[in-house]
């Protein structure tokens, strides 16, 4: 019995799942259906079904793509901690992070596949290289890193399925596991490259003063680390509550949460200085008129200060770095969701601000170029919904069928893997004992 407790609980599968689980799956399936129909409409009719224009050629899907890539950043961060820096205890959450990472990356690639005008040529970046293009580098890195994530997950899949009965696969999984430090190192390099290059995609464009900035790549990677870890924390805590399991020991959750807090603080620090240099202290015509346009036509200022800075970084940093709130799972989930929301708002603002402000290339003095406006079409929303539901579905299935949480415990059994320094049982409500035992029995 003790041995079983040490290796954690088996994933529950779907047999005997509650009606709430099936309702959740039904909702996700409905969203997936809507998404599939929308994607079909795009593939049949082309991008004319979007509200994008030649003056504003990127919109909701690019926001979805950038957000999912960032939310997948927990994978490289935590596997680097475990396999490169040797912090083995984080293995309790690293697998889930890698799973969330793969979901993020596949979702992003799905969004990009729909977003390019010629999806039938999706493989062209592999054949035709423009090594000067940050977008080429991103494409290649994203594909290679997805491969890394799959390699990292193979041992998990073998361990969780019937493949574990075959000596060959057991050996394969074992050997792959021994390779993990190398794989994690490659993954770290690839991630650092393309996560920051995504910011460079905007940061290198001199023609758009609102984008042109050397801090964009660093801001992107810092926010991705914070939001990627937040995504792992939020999914882990919430699904643990729903399944009445302590999927990851509380002290691990707390220290990962603290790491996310420092990451979001670093992001905030650079963000404020970047704003000061390019905006507050800058009186270049492009910046000033751009800010005026954004203030007049969009809620940019409110969403920047409230969505990105205060509730997207400052408050969650406080919640994650203050000892008392960090020990409360509800506060951690709240902070994680705020960081995620702040990130999505940031990616939307980043994409749209550069396009809403029109290019001005005339030597004349009139405002001849109209401000560009955009609201996604129904089909665009449909595709986005489908991708989000895909992500939710794959995560749900992963939690149900794979041993993503090797240290999972019944929620009412704090003994075995729990770390000793736990002075007082914290604010988390004691789970009803009878329910927990029922789930354990299943």
């Amino acid at each position, binding site marked *: 019995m003790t041995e079983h407790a040490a290796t954690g609980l088996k994933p529950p599968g779907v047999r005997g799942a509650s009606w709430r689980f099936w309702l959740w799956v039904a909702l996700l399936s409905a969203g997936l259906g809507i998404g599939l129909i929308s994607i079909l409409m795009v593939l049949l009719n082309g991008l004319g079904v979007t509200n994008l224009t*030649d003056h504003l050629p990127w919109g909701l899907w690019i926001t979805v793509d950038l957000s999912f890539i960032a939310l997948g950043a927990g994978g490289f961060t935590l596997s680097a901690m475990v396999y490169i820096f040797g912090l083995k205890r984080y293995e309790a959450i690293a697998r889930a992070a890698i799973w969330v990472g793969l979901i993020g990356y596949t979702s992003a690639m799905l969004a990009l596949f729909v977003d390019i005008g010629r999806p039938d040529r999706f493989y062209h*970046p592999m054949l035709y290289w*423009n090594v000067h293009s940050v977008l080429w580098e991103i*494409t290649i890195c994203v594909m290679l890193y997805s491969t890394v994530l799959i390699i990292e997950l193979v041992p998990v899949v073998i361990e969780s399925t019937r493949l574990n009965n075959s000596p060959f696969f057991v050996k394969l999984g074992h050997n792959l596991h021994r390779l993990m430090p190398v794989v994690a190192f490659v993954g770290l390099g690839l991630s650092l490259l393309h996560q920051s290059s995504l910011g460079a995609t905007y940061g290198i464009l001199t*023609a758009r003063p609102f984008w042109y900035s050397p801090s964009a790549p660093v801001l992107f990677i810092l926010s991705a680390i914070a939001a990627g870890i937040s995504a792992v924390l939020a999914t882990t805590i919430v699904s643990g509550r729903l399944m009445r399991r302590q999927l990851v020991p509380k002290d691990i959750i707390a220290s990962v949460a603290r790491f996310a807090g420092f990451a979001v603080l670093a992001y905030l620090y650079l963000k404020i200085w970047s704003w000061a240099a390019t905006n507050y202290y800058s009186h270049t015509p492009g910046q000033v008129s751009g800010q005026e346009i954004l203030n007049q036509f969009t809620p940019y200022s409110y969403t920047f200060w409230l969505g990105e800075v205060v509730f997207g970084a400052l408050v969650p940093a406080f919640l994650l770095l203050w000892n008392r709130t960090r020990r409360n799972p509800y506060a951690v989930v709240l902070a994680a969701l705020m960081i995620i929301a702040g990130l999505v708002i940031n990616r939307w603002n980043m994409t749209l601000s*550069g396009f809403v402000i029109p290019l001005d290339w005339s*030597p004349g003095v009139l405002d001849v170029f109209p401000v560009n406006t955009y609201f996604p079409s129904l089909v665009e929303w449909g595709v986005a919904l489908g991708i989000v539901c895909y992500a939710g579905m794959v995560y749900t299935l992963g939690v149900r069928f794979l041993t993503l949480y090797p240290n999972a415990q019944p929620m009412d059994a704090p003994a075995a893997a729990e770390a000793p320094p736990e002075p007082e049982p914290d604010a988390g409500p004691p789970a009803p004992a009878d329910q927990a035992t029922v789930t354990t029995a299943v």
Partner: protein
Amino acid sequence: MDEQQNTTPAQAAETTPPPPAPQPPKKPDLKANTSILSRREFITLLIGAGATLVAAATLAEPLATMLGGLPGGADGHGSGNSAVQWAMVIDLSKCVGCKYCVYACQATNDTRTTGRWNIMITDQTAQGNTFYLTRPCLQCGNAPCVSVCPVGATYKRADGLVMMDYDKCIGCRYCQTACPYGARVFNWTDREALPNPMVPEWGTPEVPPRPRGVVEKCTFCVQRIDQGLANGLTPGVDPAATPACVNICPVTARFFGNIKNPNSTVARIVSTRPTLRLREDLGTEPNVYYIPPEGMI
């Protein structure tokens, strides 16, 4: 430190075992859990980073040559040592805003009305004089669209023309995002069954229409230039080898030619008259020069 502590108790084990025992358990345990990098790991990392740097430094130059340097070229014209650089001069003091060049381009290059390669805007000088500004692709010397394209579907020819390979383009639209002049047009939908409204009054299509899902752009009527040169004609002088927008201009406000040939019309105008280029501050080095409207310079 650790080694010393380990050896002393081993030697003294026989005589006095208890005293050194209580100390060790605290320190190492804490360290093992909290330190992110041990000293050995840190040194290994340093050595690794150093080796990477050395490798990168030695490989940098051969790699750079292999990759052909940065796009655009350092001379600002991107055509390197080529003796040809196609350029256009547009005289804003002459232009009357008739849009004939816009229509001729739409017919000749078979563009859509919503996706014209050559457009006109009406603007004013600081003194309040209205002027008409037409804008083809400026065929930049340092073309931002070329360096951002992930698949190299847009590229620069030796004669300075920024071209599109419609068979390579994946339709990501990053080039549209990067172009400071909004000169690029995306094919959002399938081509309408409707005929081109500018045909045949303003010309006949000389290039096939582009498929849905790719970005397209002005080529300075490259089909005319290439065919004209093959037939021994001089672009900018012989109409058959000259862009349609230049030929049709009723007030002769557009000139075309090889700016590297000092005897060409464009080279003479640029060397004798004050000209401006759009957004020179960006360093894109456009190859379309404008003679300013009255009262601007």
